[in-house]
């Protein structure tokens, strides 16, 4: 008996030793192109939505980074986020520019159920909230002014009296966001709730996916490129969307951007590159190579303090990519953001593609989105901290990212100091404090985090 346990112990130790050894060799041996292996699939089709943060895809294509990996990629604009996701699920697209919440939402089954994974985060920040001229005129009365300009960041506290007056007049206060699991939805909700405006709950278990239960501001879905036109038509009074559609409102003179997501949550993860899990399993080498090409594109976009951005703007302005006027795209891509017409301010990190480890898929980012899904009822039942962790790990795949990054370092195309230290990186950012309502987020304690909000589901609450 004793003998047996000793033997068993020995086996365990030996096993873990070989594991350690193999880990060690893996991190020491060179990972070159040959080691990754040729791509299983060479002709790929990726989908995107006409937004400036699709830039890593456009750059990887135009600069030949995909071709360097032996990949022949076709980029195709999609009509809206739902079509894009459905086409990734049914295999018409090999991968796509996705909202950070999409792989998570799809995997846990909010909306269309399908296991989607991501090994590459496409950018940080890049969204804004715009309100119509009428709403702005009302809001402006309450906003403190310094040197003749409104003081930023503008909190939703100043929007509250406007929403209240609409309510008294019996008119619903409607706003647009781009998709139920979009970063925009969560950011807009976060901003509204921080200002005491209830954005409404979802109740999928009762079949209510409108997200308007108890709502003071009614949010609904509008595809990004149609936001300005929808607001102009008076269907919505404001929206949260990516660029260039906030700047477009300024140029068209139909609305005023009031806040960027950078001010709601500094350096928040925005888009990811999503593929279906089955695709990733069938094409592991292809996947790594795609990530390699996109890391290079992201590096190019942020290189030399945004020196390449003007060129990127020209590429994005082509009608097959974003297609908006170059000066509209340039407004936000070159480190500035124009609020009211003429009130152009420096926001150097408004569109961040590589700095601050923007491309690394952090588990803590995934968990933040999951907490917001729970907060607004998209996850109807209470979940344990461990569930959050497991879900994040099944969707976010830093392991694939690490192989790609190491290969680039090995080929001399990237510098190790631009990446997190892969040997010690846990995938969790240290607790983040820079939110508009000063609530601290610690990715390892999602349930504790939810307790900190006065508006939102938490604990055992089920609608």
């Amino acid at each position, binding site marked *: 008996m004793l003998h047996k346990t000793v033997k068993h112990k020995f086996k365990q130790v030996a096993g873990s030793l070989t594991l350690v050894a193999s880990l060690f060799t893996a991190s020491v041996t060179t990972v070159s192109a040959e080691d990754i292996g040729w791509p299983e699939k060479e*002709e790929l089709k990726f989908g995107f939505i006409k937004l400036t943060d699709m830039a890593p895809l456009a750059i990887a*294509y135009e600069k030949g980074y995909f*071709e360097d990996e032996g990949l*022949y990629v076709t980029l195709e604009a999609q009509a809206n986020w739902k*079509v894009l996701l459905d086409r990734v699920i049914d295999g*018409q697209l090999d991968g796509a520019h996705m909202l950070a919440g999409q792989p998570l939402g799809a995997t846990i089954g909010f909306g269309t159920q399908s296991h989607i994974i991501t090994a590459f985060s496409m950018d940080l920040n890049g969204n804004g909230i715009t309100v119509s001229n009428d709403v702005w005129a009302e809001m402006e009365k309450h906003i403190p002014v310094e040197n003749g300009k409104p003081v930023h960041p503008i909190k939703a506290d100043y929007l509250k009296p406007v929403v209240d007056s609409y309510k008294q007049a019996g008119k619903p206060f409607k706003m647009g966001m781009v998709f139920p699991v979009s970063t925009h939805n969560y950011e807009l909700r976060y901003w509204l709730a921080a200002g005491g405006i209830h954005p409404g709950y979802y109740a999928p278990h009762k079949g209510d996916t409108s997200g308007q239960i108890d709502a003071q501001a009614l949010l609904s879905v509008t595809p990004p490129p149609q936001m300005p036109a929808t607001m102009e038509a008076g269907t919505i009074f404001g929206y949260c969307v990516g660029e260039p559609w906030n700047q477009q409102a300024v140029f068209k003179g*139909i609305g005023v951007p009031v806040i960027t997501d950078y001010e709601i949550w500094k350096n928040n993860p925005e888009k990811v590159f999503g593929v279906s899990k089955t695709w990733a399993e069938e094409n592991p080498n292809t996947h790594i190579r795609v990530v390699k090409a996109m890391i290079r594109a992201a590096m190019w976009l942020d290189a030399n303090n945004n020196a390449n951005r003007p060129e990127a703007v020209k590429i994005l302005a082509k009608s*097959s990519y974003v297609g908006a*006027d170059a000066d509209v795209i340039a407004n936000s891509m070159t480190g500035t953001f124009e609020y009211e017409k003429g009130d152009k301010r420096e926001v150097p990190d408004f569109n961040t593609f590589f700095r601050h480890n923007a491309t690394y898929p952090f588990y803590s980012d995934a968990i933040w989105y999951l907490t917001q899904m729970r907060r607004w009822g998209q996850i109807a039942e209470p979940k344990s901290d461990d569930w959050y962790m497991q879900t994040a790990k099944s969707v976010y795949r830093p392991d694939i990212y690490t192989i790609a990054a190491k290969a680039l370092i090995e080929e001399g195309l990237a510098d190790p100091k631009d990446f997190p230290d892969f040997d010690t990186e846990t995938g969790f950012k240290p607790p983040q404090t820079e939110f508009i309502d000063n609530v601290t987020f610690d990715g390892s304690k999602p349930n504790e985090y939810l307790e900190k909000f006065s508006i939102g589901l938490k604990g055992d609450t089920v609608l």
Partner: protein
Amino acid sequence: MSKSIPVVSHIGQIRGKNVLGNIMSTVPKLLMPVVGILLFLAIWNVVAKNIDTSLGQFPGPAQVWEQTFTLIDEHSAQREKADAFYARQEERNAARVAKDPTYVPKIRDFTGAPTFFDQIWTSLYTVMVGFFIASIVAVPVGILCGLSKSAYSAMNPLIQIFKPVSPLAWLPLVTMVVSAVYVSDDPMFSKSFITSAFTVSLCCLWPTLINTAVGVSNIDSDLVNVSKVLRLKPLSHVQKIVLPASIPMIFTGLRLSLGIGWMVLIAAEMLAQNPGLGKFVWDEFQNGSSESLARIMVAVITIGLIGFLLDRLMLSVQRLVSWDKNAVLR
């Protein structure tokens, strides 16, 4: 006396008509269309200057003319890129074969975005396939309905119900059916092409069917009697008598069908995001750049011109196959 006044005024009218008629006949026939177009351009120019959209001023003829050339330039730039792409690909293939001898190199199609002219070609091809499918179904069924009263009574309710259905109502159904039924690993045609072509077929079936049926049922009874006297077999009856006699009506139907098909296709491409001119228009609308409206206008004019050319094409085919070469066709 009382009757003379209307007579006089009547004469005056005739004189007036003659004067006008003289002017009309002195103006060369070719000049009037030019006058019409110039007048339209002038009105367009004035009206455009007075419409301010959120995408800037509505494009006048000058901006549209300019965008036409931009689109041509973009097309040739894209062709150059394609050439470079193929050259690069050959180099890369060679490099890979050197490293990995088991690799079988292959040349892949250019991955760049389709240009305006590529989209025109896609649309034309799609509408032709859709129209062809519709015609080979509609003409025989139409002949059957024309020959047999009972067949006509059986078909009539279906024709009447489906004829007015908009393509946009068919589209979701066609899309779902095509994705479910048309499954293959290496498809010869893309799904989007099948969907568009099939939607076109469903909508341009009806004019051909109805006109063929009417044409066949109204054949001169003398011709039918000739056939009876000669004791023609049913097949030769159709071949020798029915078809030649109803060609004008069949072609009226076909021309209507092709026109409808072309209109339907643009709408279908727009809604389903299938490649083609409709997608071009939609993409430009989504882009919302200051040039978008002018580019859409180029597409609108192109769509019109192609529709017109298609109709002329059908007309010349009709002239070619019609037995009565003296019939007035317009």
